[in-house]
């Protein structure tokens, strides 16, 4: 990992000078950040105890965005859970949709068609870029680099356009169904995606030029928000935040799913576990994801996009209107849901912020009995006090940015 500049650490003023300064009387002060605060991404309330500008204690209070995700899922059919999963990490909804479906398919014991696997990989990576662009842009914005934010958001906007062509929605995608996908790629989409990626590549160059070697930016990022590897594992950090500590764990490589084992990509690994490394992880993953999207769309074979099993997937409309078997399957699927046999499963995918784990329990009734989601942001947010206690208040902002906490998934 190339370092951006070879800056020297500034010398502190000599002792004699600081002796001339009068002792400043301070007292501990408790301040509230949030829950409605632009730097608190979503709705987290931080109670911060300050001594001067140093944070003595920080206590994040979450739950303002709690929607009862699990309770809602337990009362609808398996496919009807999908709109709820959109709203977990609403910046990369497709990855939540597909991660949930993968766990359900594992519980049913389904192998999905190859074309669906390729499209799932491409769509996931597209949304990983969407997530990372948002994160990188927001870092720039909150550290005072508004132009970098605009470039990143322009790229994100283009991805949203492609996603809306693919899924019909910009944000809440509800993409995929148990057993495959609900719709195939639109005509001419691959070409448009490739041109979009060219444009994003250009925009990323701009962001990179504005931020990566920027003196002010590096000063705010390097050496701030540090967490030790031991603590990062203890708190359950995954994804770019764990890899910034030098731990090479990525579900896509460690336990390849779909067709990730056929994709050529590298996993960037940092070493310092600070804000700057976490930023660099995301910048590099953007480039790797771009390559994966191109490769997956190029290699996707023609074929069906959903399993040909009417107990799981809706029959084609001609069969529904033309045959009695089609009508019955359609009716049973809509009214009773996908018949998932009783059992339990833990399954995970690599979402933009880390391991997205699902623990599902089925009682065989067509509705989930239990849907546990291991959202990466929850674990990372619980480690934030450790990263900022004893540091300056100003470090809290870049730390909160680089962990990329998303209120929706943390607060379920």
């Amino acid at each position, binding site marked *: 990992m190339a370092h951006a500049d070879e800056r020297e650490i500034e010398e502190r003023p000599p002792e004699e000078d600081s002796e001339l300064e009068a002792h400043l009387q301070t007292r501990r002060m408790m301040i509230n950040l949030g829950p409605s605060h632009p730097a608190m991404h979503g709705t987290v309330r931080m109670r911060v105890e300050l001594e001067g500008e140093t944070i003595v204690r920080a206590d994040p209070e*979450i*739950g303002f965005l*709690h929607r*009862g995700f*699990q*309770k809602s899922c337990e*009362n609808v059919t398996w496919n009807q859970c999908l709109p709820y999963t959109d709203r977990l990490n609403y910046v990369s909804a497709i990855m939540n949709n597909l991660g949930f479906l993968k766990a359900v398919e*594992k*519980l049913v*014991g389904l192998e999905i068609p190859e074309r669906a696997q390729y499209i799932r990989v491409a769509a996931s990576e597209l949304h990983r870029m969407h997530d990372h662009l948002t994160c990188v842009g927001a870092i720039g914005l909150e550290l005072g680099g508004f132009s970098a934010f605009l470039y990143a958001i322009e790229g994100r906007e283009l991805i949203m356009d492609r996603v809306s062509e693919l899924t019909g929605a910009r944000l809440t995608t509800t993409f995929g169904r148990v057993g495959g996908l609900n719709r195939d790629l639109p005509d001419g989409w691959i070409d448009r995606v490739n041109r979009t990626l060219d444009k994003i590549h250009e925009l990323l160059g701009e962001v990179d030029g504005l931020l990566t070697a920027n003196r002010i930016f590096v000063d705010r990022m390097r050496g701030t928000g540090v967490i030790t590897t*031991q*603590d990062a*594992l*203890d*708190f*359950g950090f*995954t994804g770019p935040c*764990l890899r910034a500590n030098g*731990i*090479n*764990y990525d579900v896509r490589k*460690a*336990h390849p799913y779909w067709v990730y084992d056929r994709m050529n990509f590298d996993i960037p690994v940092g070493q310092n576990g600070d804000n700057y490394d976490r930023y660099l992880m995301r910048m590099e993953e953007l480039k790797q994801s771009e390559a994966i999207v191109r490769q997956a769309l190029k290699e996707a074979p023609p074929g069906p996009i959903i399993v040909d099993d009417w107990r799981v997937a809706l029959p084609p409309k001609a069969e529904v209107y033309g045959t009695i078997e089609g009508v019955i399957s359609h009716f049973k699927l809509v009214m009773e849901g996908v018949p998932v*046999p009783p*059992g*339990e*499963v*833990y*399954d*995970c995918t690599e979402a933009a912020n880390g*391991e997205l*784990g699902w*623990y599902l*329990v089925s*009682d065989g009734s067509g509705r989930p*009995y*239990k849907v*546990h989601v*291991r959202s990466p942001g*929850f*674990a990372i*947010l*619980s*480690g934030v006090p*450790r990263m900022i206690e004893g540091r300056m208040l100003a470090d809290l902002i870049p730390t909160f940015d680089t962990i990329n906490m998303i209120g929706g998934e943390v*607060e*379920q």
Partner: protein
Amino acid sequence: MSLRALTLVKEKYPDAFVEQYTDRTGGAWGVLKPDSLRQVLAHLKDDPQLDFKLFLSMDAVDRLQLTDSVPRFEVVYFLYSVTHHEHLRLKIRAGEEAPEIPSATSIFQGANWWERFVWDFYGIRFTGHPDLRRILMYEEFKGHPLRKDYPLRERQPLIPERPIRDIFRGPGTSGTA
């Protein structure tokens, strides 16, 4: 998937396990006795052959509506080893009356928030937890919403809600009266 690890722990602590089984999808589970939880977790974390240092998550299941509903609660733990690249699934069973199990916070700091989550939503107490407050619901909230006997449409507003009569289904039960 993690059968190797479970066998290793079982050799070391044969009395700690109630049961060991493999679920339908091939995941190996170890069911622990509550008293031996901390001992086993500490061993899993420190033994270099196991090295389960990454605390992924934990949650609970209320088995009230399942066929074998006694004991009522199951608390599940998911660990990961970044050196051996294995997942580990552990379970503890807890009864219906004032369920209590030992806290894992002294071994994994990440367990802190997850235990608060399980307390908040299932009402399972963790003995030795430094700060067992609700985490997502508010302090004034009564009951534990993910228990199966907590009604789906129950509402507990902090300020009284105005009844909405023109919408058939709610919010909650106030509109149906």
